[in-house]
């Protein structure tokens, strides 16, 4: 048999040799590993090559903003056609590099505030989008076909050997660092300060190529702070239904909460409503979430016992540090977060609950809105059935008995969407067809951008009631169960009243009176904290809210 001709290669270590060449060019600008901030642009021009895959670290909280700005000022003659592989497109420079021709291809997870501009640049042919991912997906591809050649990361502090201290916002750094450093990639860290001795080492120095002390601390956004003052009585009502109709019913102990006001309302009635129901120690014991300030009363009152975090939250540092029985804390006394581990912990938990903008009659939900590319982030991994799960827990087994009534016994993760039937301006949450379909056509996507698929979803909670999709046998029943909690929207008013009654008898639709929820109690008085100031009080003064949330 003839061996097929092999492609010519220049040995088995070309990446490492290329790394050495880049380090030689970059090293000429450095003092050891340290590069002065005013030479950052020069450094990037020296170590980045055309067509490189590059990651600029930036996620929900911290951003390598100084290095992102430096990259936007390199000469497009020297650095061009980059392939950006990073989770968030959040800062202007992330897109400036496409406008300038420095970068061309993009694989990412989430665009947030830059979504509108990104859509425009895609339409103009300036950005070629490979795919939009979830966090776990993109980081997985770092270890297969999208390994970064150069990564620009952010840390709190470094020493002169390049050891890094991330502080409580470790977030995505371990994933980026691991993929880059061990595939002969260049790793440049922007740090707030260079010190002689670090409080703890989060990234070993021999993995790090260069360190730049940024003129200003890296940008951090307090995106998980929800002011209890803005929680409505409708949200309190829905929270009561979640506690009785889902958490109590299934005995949910391990879970992940979304970050909206709806789930904040659940957190804030644990010390009041759930306490009176005798549920402390029975529900909500272990959580995979960021340290949301609205969790403070539930922690202080002994409901939530342990929390692993994807990242930190501004103002929560001292409170978290003083609660090392609850949070994961380094020997230095500050939290260690890790987005991948938090995502995995949440994926294998008993329940995910979040909010969305649109739900169709199959239960598919989407946060996509027309004219804007946003993306996925972490919700699809949290909010999906964990088919690889094998260990039992009361909640998982009980949901499994509802889901698999014949054949092989199985467990089932609870995936819950908590939505009001109408959003602001009386636009309906429930729709016959998601905007995601139109978005797919507009942006030439392979599939409609669905956040949580209908067959992953188990419950929908609205102000009208709960639809338990596990107890629906056909798509027609599922559609009527959804109409049955869709209130006065067009979708809700088109319900078949007879079928809805049948489904209610079966327990596939539950109204407040069916689960012992007294609507008259749906009052803001039920919230354990009704303001940011109340949260500070609950924390014994350890929570230090950012200035914009202080109004006293």
């Amino acid at each position, binding site marked *: 048999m003839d061996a097929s001709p092999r492609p010519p290669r220049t040995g088995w270590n070309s990446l490492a040799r290329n790394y050495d060449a880049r380090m030689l060019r970059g090293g000429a600008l450095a003092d050891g590993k340290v590069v002065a901030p005013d030479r950052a642009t020069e450094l990037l021009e020296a170590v980045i090559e055309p067509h490189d895959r590059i990651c600029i670290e930036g996620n929900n909280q911290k951003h390598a903003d100084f290095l992102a700005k430096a990259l936007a000022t390199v000469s497009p003659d020297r650095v061009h056609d980059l392939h950006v592989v990073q989770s968030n497109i959040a800062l202007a420079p992330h897109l400036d590099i496409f406008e300038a021709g420095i970068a061309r291809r993009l694989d990412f997870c989430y665009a947030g505030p830059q979504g509108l501009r990104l859509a425009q640049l895609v339409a103009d042919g300036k950005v070629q989008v490979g795919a939009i991912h979830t966090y776990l997906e993109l980081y997985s591809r770092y270890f297969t076909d999208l390994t970064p050649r150069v990564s620009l990361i952010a840390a709190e502090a470094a020493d002169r050997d390049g050891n890094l201290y991330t502080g409580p916002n470790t977030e995505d750094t371990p994933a980026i660092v691991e993929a880059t450093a061990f595939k002969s990639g260049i790793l440049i860290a922007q740090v707030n300060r260079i010190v002689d001795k670090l409080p703890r080492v989060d990234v070993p120095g021999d993995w790090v190529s260069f360190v730049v002390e940024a003129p200003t601390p890296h940008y951090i956004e307090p995106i998980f702070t929800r002011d209890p003052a803005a929680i409505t009585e*409708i949200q309190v009502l829905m929270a009561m239904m979640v506690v009785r109709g889902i958490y109590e019913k299934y005995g949910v102990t391990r879970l992940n909460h979304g970050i909206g006001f709806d789930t904040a309302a659940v957190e804030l009635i644990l010390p009041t409503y759930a306490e009176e129901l005798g549920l402390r120690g029975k529900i909500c014991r272990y959580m995979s979430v960021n340290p949301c300030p609205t969790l403070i009363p539930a922690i202080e009152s002994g409901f939530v016992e342990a929390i692993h975090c994807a990242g930190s939250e501004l103002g929560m540092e001292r409170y978290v540090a003083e609660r090392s029985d609850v949070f994961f804390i380094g020997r230095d006394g500050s939290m260690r977060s890790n987005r991948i581990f938090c995502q995995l912990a949440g994926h294998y938990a008993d329940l995910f609950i979040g909010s969305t903008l649109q739900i169709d009659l199959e239960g598919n939900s989407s946060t996509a809105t027309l004219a804007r590319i946003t993306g996925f982030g972490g919700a699809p991994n949290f909010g999906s059935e964990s088919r690889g799960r094998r260990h039992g827990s009361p909640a998982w087994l009980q949901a499994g008995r509802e889901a698999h009534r014949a054949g092989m016994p199985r467990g089932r993760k609870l995936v819950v969407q908590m939505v009001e039937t*109408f959003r602001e301006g009386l636009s309906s949450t429930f729709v016959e067809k998601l905007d995601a379909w139109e978005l797919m056509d507009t942006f030439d996507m392979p599939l409609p951008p669905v956040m949580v698929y209908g067959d992953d979803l188990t419950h929908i909670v609205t102000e009208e009631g709960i639809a338990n999709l596990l107890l629906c046998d056909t798509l027609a029943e599922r559609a009527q169960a959804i109409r049955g909690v869709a*209130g*006065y929207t067009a979708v809700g008013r088109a319900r078949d009243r007879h079928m809805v009654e049948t489904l209610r008898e079966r327990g596939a639709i539950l109204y407040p009176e069916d689960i012992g929820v007294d609507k008259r109690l*749906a009052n803001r008085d039920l919230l354990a904290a009704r303001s940011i100031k109340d949260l500070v009080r609950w924390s014994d003064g350890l929570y230090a809210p950012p200035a914009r949330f202080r109004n006293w």
Partner: protein
Amino acid sequence: MERLEFRFAGRADAPAASDGEALVGVVGSGNLEVMIEQVDLGGECLVTVDTSINGFVETWESVLRDFMERHRLGNVRVSINDGGATPAVVALRLDQALANLGKPPR
């Protein structure tokens, strides 16, 4: 701003206000105000809605009809200033205003 008026048949045997003294239930939060008065309307129910969002007549009618049927009402006058509130909020407020009927406003 749009003013909507609805008239429902109501329950003929519903008690009307005695001694010409109207019982009033009021609930207000933000811009949403709901007032329910028990007056002699020959059994009928009259509802006035001042809404900031136009084009939702059918939605309002459904919300109000369900409310009237839920509580088997008659001889009431309901005034709503919706302040852009969703039907869910209005329905909850209507129930609360009814519960407050005859009690001093909070």
